């Protein structure tokens, strides 16, 4: 079949179903190829995984705050991990590992990149679906087993993987190195491999859809910033994941086929000399961070794009510095490929190499700052509408500032030798990969909820949610910065045994945990809001925020095939606000030039 014929038959099917030939429940909601259903599936999956990750974090906090207090009720739930009422050290390291893995791969990646990416890309570029809908469905159904396998790894002998989300060898390479290094680590590798496969399929789809399926008139420089950020994030993802795949394959060979890619000579594990030799654990660190650093930008860029997107309609002004922002996104992407060494300053690298990585890292703060300043400048002099979505977007800018500020210290090799692997790093990256992404996700959720479900979320509950998320967040992770400055190492099971921490151990962990509890309460308001709104009536019209981008031209929620018989045609840039000639203060992307003149 020729390509055109394929395209048209696809088109015909989409239109047919949108004209009432209903699909069965399973095809419509479970094994759906509709990008909107897949996006929502990802969104919900991410939500559930976020709760699971938070639960693990709760256990970590309890251990760090009350390491010497027994918890008999937890022994009833986890008889092995809490034998005698105390958490076992192995369980603690598994918790830290799986908390990081779940939050990064199965919460933030799924929610932001997969969830909003799938939902928004076709709608915002004016396509009827992704370039390859079946591949899209396959990508979701590849992540599901990845999640199940990660979850199941808690229940195998030795427990879940315990070498951190970074899976450093030899802990990850020698099955006998720790209880979690056995089956748990193998399952971890399989789970992450499935995730990578799924993300590669998703990335292929995103890039091709954005390049090839844009509506008439949607030139690249008319694309909303969300789409730009997702495009650039997908490209860095596609470039950075394959070397990690290579690294994971080598790790698997080391674990099961007797190779020594990561294993040096003369290594004693549990008192026994292992037979391997000739490899280097540093190889893993290089390959891992070559992915790992770009990966954090894969997550942060969509969060920034979404934040910008949400700010504009509530500031009622055009995005400040649209072009600069696009080029800064590109610059960040480029620079993010050459800074991975800043995670390895203490690995014994040559100071000159360290200097190279320091400079690269400090350079990357320039485009990052420009984007932040552009966002603030967008608000400047705007007619602010402080909805919950807008407030979350503003919160994102604040977190980005704090995280970047910590990053300046860490990016400096001399300072990092003191700060590396302390709670300071944990504070830094939680503001970024935890805070910016989480708030970006929430800003996007409040903003696009009417489009996704035809209902507007409750504003009062939303504002409670906002304040009880943002304020405690500063409490939790701000405190962690100071705990790290005091010298508290990360990933340690019990810090009461270090005398030099006595002056802070009494209160800092408790402050952190109390704020964490407040944040949990805040999220309950979100769950309440969701429940209430889903039970309530449909109350959203097509464009409740008076916004200009394409998705608001579709029905809320949009039908299968998105646009009815006529696909949209784009006549202008994405953010035309504050136009005093027209009746309204905004001009939608689909409005042709003649009509604006007629209106004025």
């Amino acid at each position, binding site marked *: 079949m020729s390509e055109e014929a394929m395209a048209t038959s696809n*088109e015909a099917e*989409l239109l047919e179903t949108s004209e009432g030939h209903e699909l069965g429940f399973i095809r419509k909601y479970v094994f759906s190829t509709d990008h909107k259903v897949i996006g929502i599936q990802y969104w919900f999956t991410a939500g559930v995984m976020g709760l699971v990750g938070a639960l693990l974090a709760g256990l970590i906090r309890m251990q760090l705050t009350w390491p010497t207090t027994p918890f008999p009720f937890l022994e009833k739930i986890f008889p092995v991990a809490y034998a005698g009422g105390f958490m076992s050290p192995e369980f603690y390291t598994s918790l830290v590992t799986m908390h990081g893995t779940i939050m990064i791969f199965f919460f933030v990646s799924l929610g932001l990149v997969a969830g909003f990416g799938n939902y928004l890309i076709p709608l915002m570029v004016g396509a009827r679906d992704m*370039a390859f809908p079946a591949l899209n469905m396959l990508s979701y159904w590849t992540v599901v087993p990845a999640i199940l396998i990660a979850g199941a790894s808690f229940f195998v002998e030795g427990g879940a993987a315990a070498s951190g989300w970074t899976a450093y060898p030899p802990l990850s390479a020698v099955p006998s190195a720790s209880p979690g290094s056995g089956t748990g680590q193998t399952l971890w590798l399989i789970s992450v491999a499935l995730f990578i496969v799924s993300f590669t399929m998703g990335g292929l789809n995103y890039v091709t859809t954005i390049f*090839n*399926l844009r509506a008439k008139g949607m030139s690249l420089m008319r694309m909303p910033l969300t789409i730009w950020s997702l495009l650039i994030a997908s490209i860095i993802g596609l470039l950075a994941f394959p070397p990690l795949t290579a690294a994971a394959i*080598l790790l698997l060979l080391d674990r099961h086929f*007797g190779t020594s890619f990561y294993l040096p000579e003369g290594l004693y594990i549990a008192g026994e000399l292992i037979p*391997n030799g000739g490899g280097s654990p540093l190889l893993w660190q290089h390959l891992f961070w070559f992915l790992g650093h770009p990966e954090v930008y894969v997550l942060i860029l969509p969060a920034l794009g979404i934040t910008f997107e949400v700010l504009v309609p509530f500031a009622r002004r055009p995005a400040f510095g649209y072009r600069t922002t696009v080029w800064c996104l590109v610059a960040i992407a480029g620079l993010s490929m050459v800074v991975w060494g800043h995670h390895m300053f203490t690995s014994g690298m040559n100071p000159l190499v360290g200097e190279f990585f320091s400079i690269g890292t400090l350079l990357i703060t320039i485009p990052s700052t420009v984007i932040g300043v552009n966002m603030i400048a967008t608000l400047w002099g705007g007619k602010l509408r402080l909805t919950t979505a807008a407030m979350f977007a503003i919160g994102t800018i604040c977190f980005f500032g704090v995280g970047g500020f910590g990053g300046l210290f860490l990016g400096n090799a001399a300072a990092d030798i003191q700060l590396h692997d302390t709670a300071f790093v944990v504070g830094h990256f939680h503001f970024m990969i935890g805070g910016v992404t989480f708030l970006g996700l929430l800003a996007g959720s409040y903003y696009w909820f009417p489009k996704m479900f035809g209902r507007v979320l409750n504003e009062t509950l939303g504002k409670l949610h906002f304040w009880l998320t943002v304020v405690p967040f500063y409490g939790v992770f701000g405190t962690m910065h100071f705990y790290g400055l005091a010298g508290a190492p990360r990933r340690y099971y019990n810090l009461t045994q270090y005398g030099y921490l006595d002056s802070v151990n009494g209160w800092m962990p408790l402050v952190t945990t109390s704020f964490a509890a407040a944040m949990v309460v805040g999220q309950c308001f979100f769950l309440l809001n969701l429940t209430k709104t889903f039970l309530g009536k449909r109350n959203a019209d097509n464009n409740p925020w008076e916004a200009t981008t394409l998705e608001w031209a579709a029905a809320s929620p949009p039908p299968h095939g998105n646009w009815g018989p006529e696909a949209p045609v784009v006549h202008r840039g994405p953010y035309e606000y504050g136009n005093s000639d027209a009746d309204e203060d905004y001009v939608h992307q689909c409005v042709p030039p003649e009509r604006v003149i007629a209106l004025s």
Partner: protein
Amino acid sequence: MSSHSAEALTSDATFLGMSWRKTMMWVFIITDGLLFAGFLASYGFARAAAPEWPDAHEVFHLWFISLMTFVLISSSATMATAVAAAKRGDHATVKKMILATIVGGTVFLGMQAVEWNALFAQSVTLSSNPWGVAAFGNYFFTITGFHGTHVLSGVIILAVVWLKARSGRANAEGVEMAGLYWHFVDLVWVFVFTLFYLI
């Protein structure tokens, strides 16, 4: 088809003049290439760090490897002929040339098996070898093995295209995409060949 088909699913947007299927193939090739880049960079890292390395002239039969390389490169030439013929609509040549490419790929795989066997006979394996340089076998078998599986999947893809061509269902773009993949696999071999056998 339906009256709506004028307003096609795909707009006329293309990327550098390519359809979305071809864009996708290129993106895939780039990612796959980076996978090999990861392997080869690790290999370079390990080899630079190793105090000694077995001499390629003693380990391998270089004339045999050169022959293998020649076969693979020739199969790229037959593939290019097939793609050109597909563009002209010359179906007979397409079928012949794809078949020739399949034969080339299969011969290459057979020769690789022979080479591996010769190494096994000298007790050079994935995890150990007589020179005590574990990294040599580690990288050699992993990377050539990975490349071999790529050749194998290329042969399978070509077989599918050939079957389609025989029943007249192949189109020029399909042939071209299979060709892109095949040239990529050959190109990777050039790197493998240079890095393992020549230096």
